[in-house]
């Protein structure tokens, strides 16, 4: 008999046409948000962690941090300097410490101007090798810079892959970076990280001159002698810099990060995104449920007489209850199906968009059948729950009174 109830309910949902669709909007949005987010989640995670695939288990990074406490002026960031680099180099367990500068610079070629990342290669060959090694870069054309290559640059792969300057860039061409002309010595292989794909490498001396940088360091990459000593060395670096700057624990205006911490930071970002979208989806589903409940109330009112007739011809309270519950569950179900389709569609469009803008990311969508099934079942349950009160009211209508409506 359930089959008959389903077909009767489906008929009523269909009959209300546009009103049924409007009722389901909340469910569409909620389910679409959940499905698209989770479908994109893996791609997002891969893309973000891909940016950090240069993470080595034996390297630490020391960076500047804004404290943000105290009255204005007092929190002026204390930048890392050559002095800090020397301090770190002397710490036990440290094999190498390399100063890195990473900035954004205006690049001009063929009368087109763009902003790109620029970074230094250090002065010592050993340090240069560490940078190349840790970033895992290889030349696709030409060769990498060495310490003698003043006035020359190496470009990331996107300089040749994307036609952003309207004219082909090749090894040997001259490009204007930050107002000075540089010769292209090499172009890198395509990397997993879009930052590396759009980066410009140049001599530290050149970079400091072009961007007018004094004694400043953006981050220090530290290679330890023994990978197992990583956390201990990190702690020693913290103590040493605190000592040097006269800081107590908790007042750090710098940060020493291990690869583990970096991954944790990424995961916090991903979790935050998940929570925010999850909350939006939750609110949307709640609103959707209320919408269904409201529609069902209206439906009970409009069909009071019909309910009376059904009772007169033998419908039991339970029959009416089931009929209305199926109807509201059907609203949830259809909402879930359409929401899931919209969600998957959004995920694919988003992935297409991301890949169009950042082809290097190889951003993918993962289609998970259990996820889609769970989303649809979940919305069906929400629909059913929303219908409980109106359906109960319908089932308890007295036949005489209902017929009089």
């Amino acid at each position: 008999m359930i089959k008959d109830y389903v077909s009767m309910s489906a008929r009523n949902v269909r009959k209300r046409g546009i009103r049924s669709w409007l009722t389901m909007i909340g469910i569409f949005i909620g389910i679409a948000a959940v499905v698209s987010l989770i479908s994109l989640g893996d791609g997002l995670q891969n893309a973000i962690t891909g940016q950090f695939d240069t993470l080595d288990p034996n390297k630490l990074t020391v960076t500047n941090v804004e404290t943000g406490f105290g009255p204005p002026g007092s929190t002026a960031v204390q930048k890392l300097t050559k002095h800090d680099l020397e301090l770190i180099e002397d710490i036990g367990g440290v094999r190498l410490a390399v100063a890195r500068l990473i900035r954004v610079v205006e690049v001009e070629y063929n009368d087109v101007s763009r902003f790109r990342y620029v970074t230094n290669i250090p002065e010592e060959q050993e340090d240069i090798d560490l940078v190349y090694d840790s970033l895992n870069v290889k030349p696709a054309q030409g060769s990498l810079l060495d310490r003698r290559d003043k006035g020359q640059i190496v470009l990331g792969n996107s300089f040749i892959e994307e036609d952003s300057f309207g004219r082909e860039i090749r090894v040997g061409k001259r490009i204007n970076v930050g107002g000075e002309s540089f010769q292209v010595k090499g172009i890198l292989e395509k990397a997993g990280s879009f930052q590396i794909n759009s980066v410009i490498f140049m001599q530290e001396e050149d970079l400091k001159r072009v961007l007018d940088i004094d004694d400043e360091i953006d981050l220090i990459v530290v290679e330890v002698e023994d990978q197992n000593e990583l956390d201990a060395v990190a702690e020693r670096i913290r103590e040493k810099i605190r000592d040097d700057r006269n800081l107590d624990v908790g007042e750090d205006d710098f940060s020493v990060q291990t690869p583990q911490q970096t991954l944790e930071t990424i995961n916090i970002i991903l979790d935050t995104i998940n929570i925010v979208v999850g909350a939006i989806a939750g609110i949307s589903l709640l609103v959707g449920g209320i919408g269904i409940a409201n529609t069902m109330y209206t439906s009970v009112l409009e069909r009071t007489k019909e309910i009376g007739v059904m009772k007169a011809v033998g419908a039991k309270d339970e029959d009416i209850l089931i009929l209305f519950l199926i109807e509201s569950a059907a609203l949830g179900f259809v909402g879930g199906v359409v929401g899931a389709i919209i969600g998957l569609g959004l995920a694919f469009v988003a992935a297409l968009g991301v890949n169009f803008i950042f082809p290097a990311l190889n951003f993918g969508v993962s289609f998970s059948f259990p996820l889609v099934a769970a989303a649809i079942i979940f919305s069906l349950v929400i629909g059913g729950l929303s219908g409980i009160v109106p359906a109960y009211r319908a089932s308890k209508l007295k036949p005489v009174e209902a017929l009089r409506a």
Partner: protein
Amino acid sequence: MKKSPNIIELKKVKKHYKMGDSIVRAVDGVSIKIERGNFVSIMGPSGSGKSTTMNLVGSLDIPTEGSIYLDNIDIATLSESRLAQIRGRKIGFIFQSFNLVPNMTAKENVMMPMIFQEIEESERKKRAEELLRLVELADRMDYLPRQLSGGQQQRVAIARSLANDPEVILADEPTGNLDTKTGEVVMDFLRTLNKQGKTIIMVTHEPELAEEYSNKIYWMKDGKIEKITSKSGNTWKVSGK
């Protein structure tokens, strides 16, 4: 159990409503015995309590006082669900305003009461088609109520009332929304059904209609039965009060 000669029996039934501070005595001590196979009318002007009486007879409502027996079962002792089940099996309803479900075709409307008796779909279809042929609507089975005339709708309602082959058909002003000619067609169907053994109970405010078709008339006024008249031969005699 031996079948009682009375399909429905009301014993000193009262139905009182509270309206604000006052109590409305819609039905005030009514006793009615309806014999199997009879064609009975409940007559009276509006406000006489005949509609309330019909609801009680049809077990759509339960009395404030007194008892109602439907085939020897005291309906006051039954839950609404149980009552619905019995009602669906034993009584067929015909309403003044037809009360067909608007988004169901004629055939589906006739099939509906059978759903609640858990009859197989193929059987329901077969029976609904038979019944619609009986009321001469074989060519209108898949029409929606709004595509049918009033007379046709009332004939669908008659077919629906017969869906579960009930013993009693309760018709509340069955011709009230119809012109004289179509009204006659509907009444002739009811007469035929009565001849085939169905008990018919009709509520009407038209004495001519009651006298032409029924054998016994309960005349109501102010919630009470004023008189009962019965047909013997071609004349009517007062047979009780």
